């Protein structure tokens, strides 16, 4: 695990901008040059028109205007390509870093929802990648409208005054016709969710519908809400019409006044006809002030995105030691283990030992801390105090490879990742080991019946809860000394569970089994009974069974 120093520093907006530093001078130069060219163009056009109107030689001004146009196009090309490349690179870098953090911090990651993480990695990184370009863009975008205003003042202050009056009128028009459009949208969404709800129901009943041959009738039933949807949809468009009318009036309002004042100035000989044309253009450019909020919003969005992904980016990775295990049989020992949660301790001062090769059952009511105990034993979590040792070595002192070779965890609802079934069964492991593990847990028959056997793409896999658990078991099967099973066979049918039980019994690994099943507890050499995060008692199932509180744990 070699770390990139720059990537280890906390991610801030400034840091995100700095990472795009190689591109920013080019983007900034193109943007500023383009804006200056756009500002100069109306004056150049004015000079050309006036020269032509005067009947003189217009080659100079026309060439100047042509040059400015070419400059604008060139700047546009340079800016947009540089910006695209800059953002694409930055997004890829951010994403790679985030994926590494997510995988390297299993003890922290449960704070985030999966959907939330995905949103941060995909959309969040895309927005944050614009941090550099947006910071530069905000400056460059402010240039044309502000410059246009300055030029209007410079041409004649009365033009600027007319422009200001126009802006006030525009604001009044926009306010005058403001109208609520949300009601129509709300009704439209309601009609839409009704159709969606009916479709969901029908999709759940796919087999029933197929067997009854009623797909057509079901389609009609789901679509019965369509006319209402169309009606509300049209109402939405009608509600928008007021906004359309407003924009149509407001548009010319800002420019006509400036043109009229310019006209009077032309008549008075203070402005040339070309300058009248230029004044009109500057008025339009100045009206771009309103859209500046959009640029500011883009920067704000990049800023917010950086802050959002920083929460993931700044996760500290789980640290591993360098130790290897001494020879041993897999003795697991908890000594004074306490794990704190948001609302008080989840595990309190647990001390117990599981002899090498033995099976310990962890039982307790839901919420008593069983799964956290399993995670701590599998080192997906570190205790806040106390130690967990395997054959005498603290888990935190072991190297990552040694740790994962020695122990593993299977859960009730395993999350599977990978391109194919084989990847899900053993991410990055050789095929022979994968097939062995699958055979041991009875997943081999299932695999060979699939369209492409072990190479069946994971998304195409028809999978029940039992199937997923079997894959999860196979994935953990490689552990050499300790297998932690957190309710990992609960969805298997009796026959399959029996096979797994036999295979487990045949291996000599230590087993820590979280279970709700009294038979499993009975089969264990030792039961650890948890209550509210603390050990209520340890001992064989038969001894504990006399306690009615203990029996109550299994009564579901």
């Amino acid at each position, binding site marked *: 695990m070699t770390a990139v120093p720059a990537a280890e520093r906390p991610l801030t907006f400034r840091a995100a901008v700095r990472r795009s530093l190689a591109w920013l001078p080019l983007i900034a130069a193109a943007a500023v040059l383009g804006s200056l060219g756009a500002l100069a163009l109306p004056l150049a056009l004015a000079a050309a028109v006036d020269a032509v109107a005067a009947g003189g030689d217009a080659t100079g001004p026309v060439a100047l205007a042509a040059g400015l146009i070419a400059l604008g196009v060139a700047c546009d090309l340079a800016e947009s390509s540089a910006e695209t490349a800059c953002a694409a690179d930055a997004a890829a870098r951010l994403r790679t870093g985030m994926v590494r953090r997510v995988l390297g911090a299993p003890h922290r990651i449960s704070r985030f929802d999966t959907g939330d993480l995905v949103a941060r990695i995909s959309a969040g990184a895309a927005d944050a990648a614009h941090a550099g370009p947006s910071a530069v863009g905000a400056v460059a975008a402010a240039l044309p409208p502000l410059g246009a205003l300055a030029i209007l003042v410079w041409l004649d202050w009365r033009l600027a005054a007319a422009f200001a009056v126009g802006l006030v009128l525009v604001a009044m028009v926009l306010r005058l016709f403001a109208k609520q459009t949300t009601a129509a949208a709300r009704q439209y969404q309601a009609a839409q969710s009704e159709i969606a709800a009916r479709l969901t129901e*029908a999709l759940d009943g796919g*087999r029933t*519908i197929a067997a009854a*041959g009623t797909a057509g009738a079901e389609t009609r039933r789901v679509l019965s809400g369509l006319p209402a949807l169309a009606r509300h949809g049209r109402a939405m468009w009608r509600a928008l019409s007021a906004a*359309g009318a407003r924009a149509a*009036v407001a548009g010319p309002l800002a420019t006509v006044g400036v043109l009229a004042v310019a006209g009077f100035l032309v008549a008075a000989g203070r402005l040339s006809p070309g300058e009248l044309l230029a004044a009109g253009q500057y008025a339009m450019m100045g009206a771009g002030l309103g859209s500046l909020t959009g640029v500011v919003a883009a920067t704000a969005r990049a800023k917010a995105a950086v802050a959002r992904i920083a929460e993931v980016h700044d996760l500290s990775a789980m640290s591993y030691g360098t130790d290897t295990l001494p020879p041993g049989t897999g003795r697991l020992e908890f000594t004074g283990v306490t794990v704190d949660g948001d609302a008080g301790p989840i595990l309190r001062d647990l001390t117990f030992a599981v002899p090498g090769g033995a099976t310990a059952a962890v039982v307790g009511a839901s919420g008593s801390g069983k799964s956290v105990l399993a995670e701590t034993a599998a080192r997906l979590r570190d205790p806040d105090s106390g130690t967990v040792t395997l054959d005498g070595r603290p888990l935190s002192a072991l190297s990552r490879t040694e740790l994962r070779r020695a122990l593993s965890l299977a859960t009730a609802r395993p999350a599977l990742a990978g391109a194919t079934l084989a990847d899900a069964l053993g991410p990055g492991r050789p095929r022979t080991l994968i097939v062995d593990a699958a055979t041991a847990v009875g997943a081999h028959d299932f695999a060979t019946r699939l369209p492409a056997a072990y190479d069946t793409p994971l998304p195409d896999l028809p999978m029940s809860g039992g199937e997923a658990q079997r894959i999860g078991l196979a994935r953990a099967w490689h552990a050499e000394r300790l297998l932690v099973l957190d309710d990992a066979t609960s969805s298997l049918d009796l026959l399959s569970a029996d096979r797994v039980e036999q295979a487990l019994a045949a291996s000599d690994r230590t087993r820590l089994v979280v279970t709700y*099943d009294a038979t499993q507890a009975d089969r264990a050499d030792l039961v650890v009974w948890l209550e509210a995060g603390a050990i209520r008692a340890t001992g064989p199932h038969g001894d504990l069974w006399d306690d009615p509180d203990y029996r109550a744990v299994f009564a579901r």
Partner: protein
Amino acid sequence: MRQEFRYAASGLSARAVWALLAWSALEILPTAVFGLMLARAVDEGFLAGRPWTGAAWLGGVLLAAAVGALGAARVYAALGAVVEPFRDRLVRQVVRRSLAGAAAGRPEPGALSLLTRQVEIARDAYAGIVVSVRGCLVTTVGVTAGLLALDARLAALVLPPFFLGLMAFTATLGFAAGRQRAAAEADADLTDAAGRVAAAARDLAAAGGEAYGEAFAAGPIAAQRKAERALAGAAALRTLCFAVGGWLPLLVLLVAAPRLLDQGVTAGALTGALLYILTGLQPALSALISGLGSSGLRLYVALTRIRPDTGRDEVAEADPEPGPLNPLPLPDPPAPVLAAHGLTFAYGPRSTPAVEDLEFAVGPGEHLAIVGPSGVGKSTLAALLCGLLRPDRGGVAYSGDDAAQLSPRELARRRVLLPQGGYVFTATVRENLAYLHPGATDEAIAASAAAVGATGLVDRLGGLDALLAPRDLSSGERQILALARAHLSPAPVAILDEATCHLDPAAEARAERAFAERGTLIVIAHRPSSALRAERVLVLDGGTAVLGDREMLQGVSPLFRVLMAHQSGGATP
């Protein structure tokens, strides 16, 4: 891409389009007269020393804007008539196809997101395209008219380069769309991979698969970066097209200006023509380019996800209204109610068959249980028996009729399948219960409900006329209602595929007894006790299948013995 756009255009109603264009013409009036009026204002007003005349002409521009606002308001209303039918069509397609897929056992991934998200994106983008295309169209017509009114020579100089740029843009649309689609696909792949890694992050860590996880995400991340960078090429093309269509007319006009003035074109007309380019053609072209570039792409991507079926677009929902299902006349001589001959099925050419050379027959009123470990192919067998899956070899016969030759409706008259998830839908309790027997009397419905133990639930729901809200029902309650519905079906054979798994053992026993009394029953067993109730049991054990009564199976099937041992040693829940 062509196909998607043909689809988008094919549903346009001529009347709605004309209405839209007519109002657009009004909307575009200010743009069309702007240059003309400004030219007059300059020539006859400001340069002629009559500034108030010029101001009056500019007032005309404002008047035109007011008229245009009237048009703009109506344009949006007219837009609804164009856009909403398009959206209707997409909703119909999505619903029809996802239901057909679900019924065929090929559930459409993300059907709901298609309906609520992609269709909305398509609707929005479609509107965006209609707005920008008709905007460009109407502006072009308006500006052409204005230029011609100013001076035909001006029009002859300005319009050709404009159209050149327009055509160049149209010609490169396909290229740009290809790049954009690649980027959108790369994005979707990335999201997908990120989702899988994020969901399995802890599991991967526990299995020591961090490096695999990073490598799994690295591919899509790099592909997305490449696709995103490739977009720069498309953007550059757009910029160049705009340079030709938007800036070239201006340059041409400037270069030709001295000669034009010599030929008598006025300074005002020249200014007007320049304004037509700057305030008419350029904004319209840029709106078209950005509109088609963003909305067109979004529409295209949404449509490729929705995959509207361009062929059979408006075919009505095909099957006939469900009528009463009459009992079938008994065949003569009596054949087994249900028989499987050499039944063989595999999910792929390389895979081990899930069912192989299966041979058995079920007589009228017989009760058969099928047991075996999960994943052994019990549900596959149920689907084969019901005629929902076509076997690779062999076949299934109902009273001697080959199931493969029977239509879905005919099959439904012969057997009823009850899968694991009890299907209930938002409608009255009666509609739910009489789903397979639409003509049933209330007495018959009540009798079936009573038989499977659903009377209490029906009463609690408020009787047969009460509206049923599926999300308020537990899995067990759904199964009870589905059992009552299946019990009411006139089909002589009932196949229960773990249909009672959410019921407690007593309720399960009651329901199974009711079905055994009702007619022929095949139960895919969830609990060993189901097998005990059956007259004969079919034991599937991955490759082998043994059929017999309990005594016989105790002798020959180790799997059956394990099962029975669990049943008798059932000290634990």
